[in-house]
Structure formats: structure tokens, C-alpha cells
């Protein structure tokens, strides 16, 4: 009986570990490029189908509309002649063709070519050799290629996201592909986990765990599951944020009274206090050029966002509209500040243009938290509550595209979008 139960619980754990996130697009961008994504010849040899993943990636960006196409016989490949006039009449601005061929050694060759139907010219293509387990990753790379050629910025389809799932009394820090697939559990705990933060090289996560009945900052190496304590001083240790060169973290510690901002090395050495205030100073975030730290402080009486040099020193207040502005995040190009503002009692995502200081409210929900920029700055991932459940929402920075991401069971919260890798 015990053997049966332990096998059952192992299976349940594995099922939970690989639970998928589901994504539902609830709004789409205005100007979408119509693209003909022809199924790759022979793609049924690989699961999932390459063109299906490419289509889902491109449509999820809100910038593409995959055309409905009748079956074409014989199926074209990347080597086929292209009749641009014919594709123009199908209202395509772009065309993707490809093929999947099984090799005798059990691996596969995937080739593709992208065409600009408007300019009537090929835009390039790549040939890959891969094992069948790499089909999904290969499809994401193809989507990245298409995105970069047609939009002019790097695609994020090969990146990963981290987030926390709460199911009953169990908390899991999970890492999944940007489309929510292939979720893996990095940490399982009966106590809360908050504030996951990706190291700039994408190999480690810093986070706050309450497993010791108080908040402690850990650094966790994803590949081998090894973790070290970065900060467990007397009092609370929280709000970890990596410097852009990965050499240190900013944290909020109560070891010297109140919550104040310090920097510390990932191995816990080199502690240095950065600022002093009579208030709560927390949520430090380095600017991408490493020059500034933006942070939340209520030193002026209400929580607002401030900025100081990353070596510490005087701080200037940044937010002046509203009585509750927290959770600063800087866009990868350094030009935009995203944060959470309390607007008529609702917690929503606001964007500030850092040169003009103009503010725009991006969401119309009411319990938004933890905004996170995609590494190309185009999308913001955030936690919110819909129908009483904790879900993630991905919103394009222009507000036009929205996607809702939920777990098959439980509440999802604390999202962090990982960096470009390689």
C-alpha cells in the first residue's frame, strides 16, 4: 500500500512539475503583418509541428496575423519557386516555406526560407540539424528569425519566464518557455516564495523564501539546483535585484533598523549600505546601463519611486502623480519606467517616458503586481487577479495587445521575464 501511495505521489509531483500554462489572447495589435505560414513539407514527422509553433509565437506578439490557407499540393518547400503575384493575391505581405527531413541517423533536418511578398525578394533562411527533442526550440528560433527580419528588433520566442504557483499550501517556483510550455519546478516549498530575479546570464535566479519563518534571499543555480544564501541577516532580507554585469545584487535589509537598501555580492560578501532614510526603502532596480538605482520609498510620507546613483547617495523623486507608486522597472532601452500605481483604489500598471515624464496607464484591471519587461522591451508580463484567481497577463508596451496566462490549477504570481541567452 505504501509503495502504491509513494508511486502515486511521485507521479502527481511529476505531473505538477510539468503542468502547462495556458495562454489566451484577449486583444490584438492594430497593425498586424499578414503572413502566409505554409506548413513545412514533411513536418508531421516531428511533434509539435514546426509551423504551428511559429504561427502561435508570431500571433502572440500581436504584430502578425497568420493567414488561413487552403492545402497546397504538392506541399512547397523552401526550395520551391515563389510566384509573388499569387501570394499577393492571397493578401500576404510575407511568406514562410520550409521542410522537415528525417536523416538515417535518427536526427532531422529542418530548413526554411522567408520571403518579402511586397518587395518580391527572399529575406534569407537557415538549415538546422536537430534531435526530435529540439523541435520546439528550433521552431522558436525560426519565429525569432521571422520577427527580427520583419519587425527590425530581436524576437523573444526563445526566452524563458519564471513565476510562482500556489496550490493549496504548496508553493513552486517554476521556469517555463516564453509561451508557457515545458514548465519545470526549480523550488517546491510549504512556505511562500516571492521576488524571483534572473541573473543577467540567465543561469541563476535570486528569490526570497520564507522557509525559515522569515524572508531570506537565495541564489539558485537552475541547471544543477544548487543554491546559496545571499542574505540572511538579523531581521528581513528581501527585494533582490541584479546589477547588469551580474557582479552584485541590490537588496532591502532591516538589519540596521527599518528597511534600507544595500548591495551585496552573490556569495554574501561585500555588504555595503547605499542609502539612509527614515522610511521604508525597497524594490531597488538597476537601470540597464548600471548607472542608476530606481527604488520605492515612503520617506516623503507615501510610497513613491525615487532614483539614486548606483553607488548610493542623494535620491531624487521620480513619481508625483497619485499617492501610491511602487515596483519600478526600467525598459531594456532605458527610456521607459513601468510601475504599479494605485488609481482610484485600483492597482494598475503605469508607464512613464523618462525624458518627457509623461505617464500613461496601461491596464484597466485592479490588482496588478510585479510588472516585468520582455528583453526586447516590447511586452510587459504582470500578475493580476481575474475571477478570484491569480493569473499572469502579457500586455504590449503600446497597450494594444493582451494575453492572459493561467495555470491549470492554482494561482500564478510573481512573474519575471528572463534575458536573451547565447
Amino acid at each position: 500500500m505504501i509503495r502504491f501511495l509513494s508511486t502515486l505521489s511521485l507521479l502527481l509531483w511529476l505531473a505538477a512539475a510539468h503542468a502547462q500554462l495556458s495562454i489566451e489572447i484577449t486583444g490584438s495589435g492594430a497593425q498586424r503583418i499578414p503572413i502566409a505560414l505554409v506548413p513545412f513539407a514533411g513536418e508531421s514527422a516531428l511533434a509539435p509541428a514546426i509551423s504551428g509553433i511559429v504561427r502561435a509565437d508570431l500571433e502572440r506578439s500581436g504584430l502578425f496575423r497568420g493567414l488561413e490557407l487552403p492545402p497546397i499540393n504538392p506541399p512547397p518547400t523552401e526550395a520551391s519557386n515563389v510566384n509573388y503575384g499569387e501570394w499577393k493575391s492571397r493578401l500576404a505581405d510575407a511568406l514562410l516555406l520550409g521542410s522537415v527531413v528525417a536523416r538515417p541517423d535518427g536526427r532531422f533536418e529542418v530548413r526554411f526560407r522567408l520571403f518579402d511578398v511586397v518587395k518580391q525578394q527572399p529575406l534569407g533562411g537557415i538549415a538546422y540539424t536537430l534531435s526530435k527533442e529540439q523541435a520546439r526550440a528550433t521552431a522558436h528560433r525560426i519565429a525569432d528569425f521571422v520577427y527580427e527580419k520583419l519587425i527590425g528588433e530581436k524576437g523573444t520566442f526563445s526566452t524563458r519566464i519564471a513565476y510562482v504557483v500556489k496550490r493549496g499550501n504548496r508553493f513552486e517556483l517554476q521556469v517555463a518557455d516564453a509561451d508557457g510550455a515545458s514548465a519545470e519546478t526549480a523550488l517546491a516549498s510549504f512556505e511562500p516564495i516571492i521576488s524571483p530575479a534572473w541573473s543577467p546570464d540567465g543561469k541563476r535566479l535570486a528569490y526570497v523564501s520564507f522557509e525559515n519563518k522569515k524572508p531570506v534571499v537565495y541564489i539558485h543555480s537552475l541547471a544543477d539546483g544548487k543554491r546559496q544564501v545571499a542574505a540572511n541577516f538579523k531581521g528581513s532580507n528581501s527585494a533582490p535585484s541584479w546589477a547588469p554585469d551580474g557582479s552584485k545584487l541590490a537588496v532591502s535589509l532591516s538589519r540596521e533598523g527599518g528597511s534600507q537598501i544595500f548591495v551585496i555580492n552573490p556569495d554574501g560578501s561585500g555588504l555595503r549600505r547605499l542609502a539612509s532614510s527614515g522610511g521604508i526603502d525597497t524594490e531597488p532596480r538597476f537601470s540597464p546601463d548600471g548607472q542608476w538605482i530606481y527604488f520605492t520609498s515612503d520617506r516623503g510620507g507615501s510610497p513613491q519611486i525615487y532614483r539614486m546613483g548606483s553607488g548610493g547617495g542623494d535620491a531624487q523623486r521620480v513619481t508625483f502623480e497619485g499617492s501610491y507608486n511602487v515596483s519600478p522597472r526600467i525598459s531594456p532601452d532605458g527610456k521607459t519606467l513601468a510601475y504599479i500605481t494605485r488609481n482610484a483604489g485600483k492597482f494598475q500598471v503605469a508607464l512613464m517616458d523618462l525624458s518627457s515624464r509623461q505617464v500613461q496607464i496601461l491596464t484597466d484591471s485592479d490588482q496588478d503586481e510585479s510588472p516585468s519587461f520582455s528583453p526586447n522591451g516590447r511586452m510587459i508580463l504582470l500578475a493580476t487577479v481575474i475571477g478570484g484567481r491569480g493569473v499572469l497577463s502579457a500586455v504590449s508596451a503600446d497597450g494594444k495587445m493582451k494575453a492572459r496566462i493561467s495555470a491549470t490549477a492554482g494561482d500564478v504570481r510573481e512573474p519575471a521575464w528572463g534575458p536573451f541567452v547565447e
Partner: protein
Amino acid sequence: MRAILYPLTVAAVLALGACATEEQKPAPTESTTPGTKPPSAVQTPAVKPVDATKKPAASPFAALKDPNSPLSKRSIYYDYDKFDVKDDYRSMVEAHARFLRENPSAKMLIQGNTDERGSREYNVGLGQRRSDGVKKMLVLLGAREDQIESVSLGEEKPQDAGHSEGAWSKNRRSDMLYSGEY
């Protein structure tokens, strides 16, 4: 083995029974028959009685769990956005300060909490303000600074998982825990 234990047990019980009385066996008196040499005084070792009929003195740490003692009360509740200890809790905090003063080896963890509204990390800061306030009061009342650690759980460990003001008011609190309880 059993055969030996039983008589031993009986003997032990008898011996205990013999000790557990209030009366002292009187020392034998000397005989005073005239003309005879008085016998040498018989020295009987004194027997100091032990009274096991009364309960032993209670360990001070037992009071922490005694529902009749203010020491079993551990939670301080707060109004929205407030971190001062209201007068209602003054005598509770005084009792804990006295306990900490009188038991220098006792250690306390104070966990500050908030309701769920707003940023999780800012709420860690607010919870910390609450637990720091309780610690400050205890130290002013005579506890040693190093007996107490004040931390925050932010909004992460609510007492009531609901989303109403009734639930929120139960979650805005500081909890005092002694070693062995965390």
C-alpha cells in the same frame, strides 16, 4: 527478569510509602530504669521528609501556553496603514517584557504582517515596521535587544484568506513567538 522486578518494585513502593509521610519516626527514648547504666545514645540518622503530595513548582515556560496567562496571548492587531501598538495591547506587551526580563535565556521572534493590498515587497517593509514597533516597546520595558528578532512576513501568511475588510483586519498583525515555536 520479571520475578526479580516485582519484589524490587514492591520494595521500592514500600520505601517510597515510608518516606512520603509527614510524620517523623520518633527517636527511641533512653530507658530511665533506676540503678541501671543508661544505654549509650542510639544515633538514628535523621530522615528528611519529602512531600510528593504537592505539585512541583511550575516551569516559567509553562505560562507561555497557559490560556489563563496573558503570556499565551501573542498577537497584536492594527488599523489600516498603522504600525503603532494600541493601548488595548499594552498590558500584554508588558507581560511579555517582564517574562523576557525574568528569563534571560528566553528568545522571541516577532513576525509582522499586512493585509494583501499593494506591492508584496512594500508590504514586507510595512510588516517590518509593525514588528520593529513591538520590539522597541519590549526593549523599553526591559527586555534585552539580543533576545528579540523582528522580521516581516508581508502579506504572505494571512490569518484569514478572505478578501473583505473583516479578513484584512485579522491579517494586519504582529505575532510573538518563543523558541521552539518556530
